[in-house]
């Protein structure tokens, strides 16, 4: 899945700004430098696979819930027809890195869900075949198994269903239809053997999606410094981050939509909220009118998929699925796990740093008629924003510790130079949403 695009130069600039400091940051894990970039900017798959092997995810017993997950809830999240087996996971892993599933053999799941980049692509929006850009930011595939719906507008109910769509979306992997995807693999003797072993059948599209989903269920990375802190290791996070955790639950009101517990350890309520990100650049009413006309003719999941990835109607978010006016501009709360290593942020990748994200929420989001009722100015001081951000960087799994440190330094550097979403007059209630912006002298 991919998310927003506007015009080439802007996106390219965004991608460069995102990636280049990483290159300077050092050689680790191969992200960044032109020499290390594979097709569509992805890290070469051999490097990705080497990093994945080092994670040791295959050592975890498949019949047990991942660490940090309630066993009953975990069992309830696995469909009866796709029980986890080593054969299915192995097949899914191979398919995840299989560019032959794309029309021109250049795109695989791992192109946009790059292991070295926290299973995202570190770009505002993703690039598919023929260098086409979508409209939305690629959410991480990590821990996606615990989400209650897939895609940022929740148009897909399960991982199994989600995995089908990018393969045949014209600007992602671009296969003309499901049969073509099957045909691309069916002649391969190794795949014939693997499908037989995993599902006892010949290569078929349903099992391609099932196997990818099975593999994704092994990508549960929930072992962060914060988890050690919760388990009683008081020094696992800094005193600053500890204050951030208190703010997270209190004044900053994060916990309302980003709840954490063993039954739901991702920090997403699975609900859809208009926090005003899309209100910055769209006229909702015009778009919604147009969308209703189109959906009247075809509201299939494939039509939704294309409208979400290829048109301005992407910004309508959940409304496209439900056609319920209160869902206009609403997107599912993103998980907060590994947030430090999955920039840029928001459904359109429009925020480069976690400081930008905090600035956005601090001013109460972007005013619009469909703004979520839970949004209001937070009056967080600069010190408090730093504390929440310090806390957010403790949520990265230990296996991404180096990348997390690099991202923190990189984002700090960017935030020192510019804070485009900062609006203290709004944050502290000196100006209300309906008042015109007055020029305030900046310190």
């Amino acid at each position, binding site marked *: 899945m991919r998310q927003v695009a506007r015009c080439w130069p802007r996106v390219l600039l965004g991608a460069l700004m995102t990636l280049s400091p990483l290159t300077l940051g050092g050689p680790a894990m191969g992200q960044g430098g032109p020499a290390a970039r594979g097709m569509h900017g992805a890290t070469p798959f051999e490097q990705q696979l080497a990093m994945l092997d080092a994670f040791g995810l295959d050592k975890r017993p498949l019949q047990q819930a991942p660490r940090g997950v309630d066993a009953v809830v975990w069992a*309830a999240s696995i469909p009866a027809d796709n029980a986890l087996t080593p054969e299915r996971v192995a097949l899914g892993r191979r398919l995840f890195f299989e560019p032959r599933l794309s029309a021109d053999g250049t795109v695989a799941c791992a192109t946009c869900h790059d292991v070295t980049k926290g299973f995202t692509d570190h770009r505002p929006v993703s690039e598919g075949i023929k260098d086409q850009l979508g409209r939305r930011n690629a959410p991480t595939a990590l821990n996606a198994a615990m989400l209650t719906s897939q895609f940022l507008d929740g148009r897909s109910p399960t991982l199994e269903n989600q995995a089908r769509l990018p393969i045949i979306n014209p600007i992602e992997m671009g296969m003309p239809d499901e049969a073509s995807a099957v045909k691309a693999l069916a002649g391969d003797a190794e795949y014939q053997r693997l499908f037989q072993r995993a599902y006892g059948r010949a290569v078929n599209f349903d099992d391609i999606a099932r196997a990818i989903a099975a593999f994704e269920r092994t990508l549960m990375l929930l072992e962060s410094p914060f988890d050690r802190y919760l388990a009683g290791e008081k020094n696992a996070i800094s005193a600053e981050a500890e204050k951030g955790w208190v703010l997270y639950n209190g004044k900053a009101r994060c916990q309302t939509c980003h709840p954490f517990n*063993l*039954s739901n350890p991702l920090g997403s309520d699975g609900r859809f909220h208009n926090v005003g990100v899309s209100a910055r650049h769209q006229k909702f009413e015009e778009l919604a009118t147009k969308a209703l006309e189109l959906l009247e003719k075809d509201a299939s999941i494939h039509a939704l998929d294309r409208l979400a990835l290829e048109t301005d109607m992407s910004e309508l978010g959940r409304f496209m699925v439900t056609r319920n006016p*209160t869902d206009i501009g609403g997107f599912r709360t993103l998980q907060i796990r590994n947030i430090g290593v999955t920039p840029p942020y928001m459904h359109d990748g429009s925020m480069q740093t976690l400081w930008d994200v905090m600035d956005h929420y601090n001013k109460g989001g972007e005013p619009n008629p469909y703004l979520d009722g839970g949004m209001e100015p937070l009056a967080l001081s600069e010190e408090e924003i730093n504390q929440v951000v310090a806390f957010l960087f403790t949520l990265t799994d230990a296996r991404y510790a180096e990348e997390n440190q690099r991202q923190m330094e990189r984002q700090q550097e960017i935030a020192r130079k510019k804070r485009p979403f900062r609006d203290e007059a709004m944050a502290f209630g000196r100006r209300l949403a309906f008042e015109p912006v007055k020029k305030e002298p900046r310190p």
Partner: protein
Amino acid sequence: MYAKRVAIGALLWLGCQTGSGAGQTPRARSERAPTEETVEVKLCDDRTTTTVPKDMPPTRENGQRVADSLMSQWKREHPNQAWEMKVTQSHPTIPPPADNRKVLEGAQRTDQTYALFTERDVLTWERETLKLVQEGARVFHDAEAMEGTIGVSCDMCHPDAANTHPETYPKFQTQLGRVVLLRDMINWCLEHPVKAPRMEPDDPRMRALEAYIIAQRKGVTLEYGKH
């Protein structure tokens, strides 16, 4: 040096009616007189006592012996008080939290996202609630978890949280001389029979203990102030 006196109270504040005039009744005889090598442990009736060696290892077995010694004395003097058996039998295990699946039935509100619930929401509520209660059960049965020093844990006087009647708080407790909450009585028991430090009101163990004690009275009518 006089032997330290400890009141064993958990169970019986309930049993002990607040106006019982404990001071006028003759003391129950201790099995041994306190010496410099022993600690005196007192039941919450403020009369029944026993002594234990100061160097007694604070194991669960020893704790149970202390509690049993006090309880058997108390039962001898109150032959008709079979309350604990009755309550234990009615709540043999942790009852499940309320079944909230009904919120998924029928038409849900679609006009705001916070009022839309999924199976996962309902499962999360159930599991997380049950886990807090289970954690409470663990602490309730574990003297060490409460930092108890003589091996006594809550269940030794309150099997399955019997006779804790959380549904009657807040109420005026004469032994404390003020209106108290359940957590105040838990702290009272921690200091006296369990011989553990008091817990802060937001101590995770205190929150869990309250959760467990309340869960065990599922279905009982709230009647605050009842004695």
